């Protein structure tokens, strides 16, 4: 028994040493199998890092991922979260007509403003009515076939996102949108109290909409090719609308 106890003690000491030398990665990994097992929508209710390990195909009519905690980071890891919604879009000149149908209500979302904040990055979302929604820092994303691509709550920051073949690209109130590309959309960006910086809208019925007369919009260094490039008041900054200064 003495030998046995000594071996156990040695093993425990080795394990502790290894644990001290190499911190454990607590990233929570998600794939189709774990998602199916948990059921849609997946609920992320603890702060931390989550990472996709496969595409997620979401059953018709279901939401994909609900964030219920602050300080959640979701790395799509190059994969796609997909529902069955489709948007039929066609460009004519600089205008576009887009009609969307089907799809689960939400892709990745925070239902209530008090529920949390989200960093969402590095992948694709497709075929939801609202592909991403909530207070977020979003980067390096491609969204398509969304009735609304991103609905960003106040304080959000969106960078390097492209939204293609969608009804409305971005709704961003009190948010910053930088280096966003919107192509074949009904409305490019609907915003108040926000900064729109370095954006291209190519093919839209309405490029940038400032709908409510609330908080001015700073539109800067952007290229807007749309049937109606901008609507509403309060847009300032040098941008290009259908080949002319906005």
């Amino acid at each position, binding site marked *: 028994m003495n*030998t*046995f106890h000594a*071996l*156990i003690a040695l093993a425990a000491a080795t394990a502790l040493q290894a644990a001290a030398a190499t911190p454990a990665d607590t990233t929570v*990994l*998600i*794939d189709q*199998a*774990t998602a199916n097992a948990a059921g849609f929508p997946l609920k992320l209710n603890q702060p931390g890092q989550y990472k996709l*390990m*496969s*595409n997620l195909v979401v059953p018709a009519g279901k939401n994909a991922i609900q964030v219920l905690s602050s300080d959640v980071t979701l790395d799509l*890891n*190059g*994969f*796609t979260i*997909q529902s069955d919604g489709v948007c039929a879009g066609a*460009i004519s000149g*600089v205008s576009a007509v887009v009609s969307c149908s089907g799809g689960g209500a939400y892709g990745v979302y925070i239902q209530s403003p008090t529920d949390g904040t989200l960093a969402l990055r590095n*992948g*694709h979302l*497709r075929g939801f009515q609202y592909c991403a929604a909530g207070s977020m820092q979003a980067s*390096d994303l*491609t969204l*398509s076939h969304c009735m609304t691509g991103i609905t960003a709550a106040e304080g959000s920051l969106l960078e*390097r996102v*492209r939204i*293609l073949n969608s009804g409305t690209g971005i709704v961003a109130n009190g948010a910053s949108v930088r*280096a966003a*590309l919107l*192509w*074949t959309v009904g409305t490019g960006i609907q915003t108040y109290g926000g900064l729109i910086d*370095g*954006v*291209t809208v*190519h*093919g839209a019925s309405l490029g940038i909409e400032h709908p409510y007369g609330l908080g001015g919009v700073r539109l800067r*260094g*952007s*290229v807007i*090719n749309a049937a109606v490039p901008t609507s509403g008041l309060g847009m300032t900054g*040098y*941008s*290009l609308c*259908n*080949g002319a200064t906005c």
Partner: protein
Amino acid sequence: MQTLRFATVAALALLAAAADAAPADTTILIDQAAALAGGVTPNDTTGFPVTLSKPGHYKLAGNLTVPAGLSAILVAADDVTIDLNGFTVASPSQCAVGTGSDLGAKVVCQNGEGYGIGMQGNRAGSTSYSRLTVRNGHVRGFGTGIAGQLQLSDVTVKLCSTGISASEGSLLGRVSVADSTLGISAYGSIVETATLSVVETGIRTYGSLLARVAIRFAATGVAQVTGKSASGLRNTLINAKLPTSGNPVLFD
């Protein structure tokens, strides 16, 4: 000792169970051997090009060396992400590269029509797959380096007839193209944080925003396609024989 063996077996069983429960990474790794063997995805035959016919995440696990005139990777699916993982996709280049004292450049490439990374259907213009993401690596020595409806980041391209051919709806960031006949064609797109050096034409464009772009040694820096929506240039530095043609709009 029997107790020790039982404890060890039990620990191993727990580890195995944990491994079974852990989500499997479905990222598909590609290296030279996998490319030559074929079967990377359904319809991928032996040798080059590697055909990617399923949406998802692909990652290089080594450099790819492609015979002259062939394509390296053709994408035949929507929503594909290719992480070059710091590696290089290369084919033997046949480019004659020269610069002039007038900041001009002449680059004649005879690399054939192969793509480093392309979207199947682009050439015929019939079947157009969409939304390709490529990041983090190098492409060298093809007819066209990277082509499609692209989201690019942290990519370098050299010694190609056309470096990057980005169709409408593309977003290119942190890219460089060098020693190529045409650096970037970008239509209805964003090119942000890019360098182009020793290219006959830096960027051919319409309806795009070009921001934080530096061009050094080019016969024409930025060529606006006539009869199409104007492009805007912002925070750009163009050292070329002819900095712009076709009147793109300078924001600042």
